[in-house]
């Protein structure tokens, strides 16, 4: 049950190991993880690095809300969200979302749900460094559409 905002890198394998561990009788059959990387090309330009800014306090609160909502909607035994902040280089890891469940469908859906809402709700902003200088990344309509598909109407 981990939500972390940090400048340091993370070890996806260690996080999957932590999600896999359980009391006797409760070993989850399925662990799904998403690892996001800094792309080195965006909109036709070479990206050297990016800086991630966030809203300390609100970020952790939103990430916990997203994780709690996932745990309320699916039978998941553990969930982890890690997001890095500060300056990152191309190919660096940015984000890890993972969860464990007795059921693979639940693990896949909950992980995807957490990523979709992290993209629209968690207060992080990316500034990309390209050959043309540093620019704030625009939000994408496709991310709002991805989050909207989970609404229960």
């Amino acid at each position, binding site marked *: 049950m981990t939500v972390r905002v940090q400048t340091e890198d993370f070890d996806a394998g260690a996080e999957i190991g932590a999600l896999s561990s359980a009391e006797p009788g409760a070993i989850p059959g399925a662990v799904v993880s998403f690892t996001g990387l800094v792309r080195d090309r965006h909109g036709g330009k070479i990206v050297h690095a990016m800086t991630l800014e966030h809203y300390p306090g609100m970020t952790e609160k939103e990430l916990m809300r997203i994780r709690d909502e996932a745990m309320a909607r699916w039978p998941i035994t553990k969930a982890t969200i890690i997001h890095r902040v500060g300056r990152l280089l191309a190919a660096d890891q940015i984000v890890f979302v993972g969860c464990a469940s007795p059921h693979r469908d639940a693990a896949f859906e909950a992980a995807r749900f957490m990523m979709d809402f992290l993209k629209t709700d968690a*207060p992080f902003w990316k500034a990309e460094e390209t050959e043309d200088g540093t620019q*704030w990344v625009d939000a994408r309509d496709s991310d709002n559409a991805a989050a909207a598909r989970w609404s229960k109407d």
Partner: protein
Amino acid sequence: MRIMYFAWMREHIGASLEQIDKPDHVTTVADLISHLRGVSAGHALALSNMEVVRVAVNQNYTSLDAPLNDQDEVAFFPPVTGG
């Protein structure tokens, strides 16, 4: 109140945090925005198009008609782009 700005709004305004006394005529987020637009050209620019501005009061997303009081932390920021 504490007013916070992030990303390009912070750059337009030139500060990430302002501490102000809430004027009496400011009772909602919309009132606060009208007030802030008069503070400087940077404020006016940052708050010119509310379509691309999100507002949080006390670290919860909220709408323009939300009520405010003097102890609130109000944050303005662009649509988020993490992940």
